[in-house]
């Protein structure tokens, strides 16, 4: 398995086959005398932005943190909760109650629901 070719930027789906974002970042854990362990996958606009500009990503994280308490850090998924299945990656939990779906849920409740006929 290759981290860049097979995992980074890959589509994630949750246990209900809902699209759950893409792998925006991968975190390795370094240990003395042992190979680096694949520890987490990050799904977050902060991580995504940091791939273009670290400064902009930090600014965005600060803003988000001020508005939504505790959301100024990227959402991490432990590697053990991810399974490679078929062409994509599968999470073993429901993503709709995680930060991955925070924007979706907020928009649905505050905007879409108020549009008549939705």
């Amino acid at each position: 398995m290759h981290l860049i070719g097979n995992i980074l930027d890959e589509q994630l789906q949750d246990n209900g086959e809902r699209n759950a974002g893409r792998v925006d970042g991968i975190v390795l854990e370094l240990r003395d005398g042992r190979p680096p362990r694949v520890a987490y996958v990050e799904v977050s606009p902060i991580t995504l932005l940091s791939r273009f500009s670290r400064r902009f990503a930090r600014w965005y994280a600060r803003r988000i943190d001020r508005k939504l308490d505790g959301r100024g850090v990227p959402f991490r998924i432990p590697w053990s909760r991810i399974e490679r299945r078929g062409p994509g990656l599968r999470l073993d939990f429901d993503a709709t109650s995680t930060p991955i779906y925070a924007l979706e849920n907020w928009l649905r409740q505050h905007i879409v629901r108020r549009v008549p006929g939705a």
Partner: protein
Amino acid sequence: MMVQIHEVHVERMLSQRVRDADGHVLGRLEEMRVEIVDGEHCVVEFHVGAGAMIERVASFVRQLPFFRGVPGARSAIRIPWQLLDLSDPNNLRVSATRRELRELQRKDRA
């Protein structure tokens, strides 16, 4: 604090220059190979080359008529995990020289 030192981000190391023990640039980090070691997914090998993007474009261009002579990218240098120092993602260093790495690869293939 300790935790942060022991973590590195794959996406930040991607496409960074990698230098050998003599300080020569070997190329850019373009891939990491993962295998299961002691029941855990671990990075066992780093691939350094011209850059994944350049290789993809070159291999496509070579398929077009009149462009078959475009040189293919040299095969990536494979670096065992023990030899790459990841402590500073902005300054990736291999603890071997280019020649030693080529030697290692030749032995691997044999």
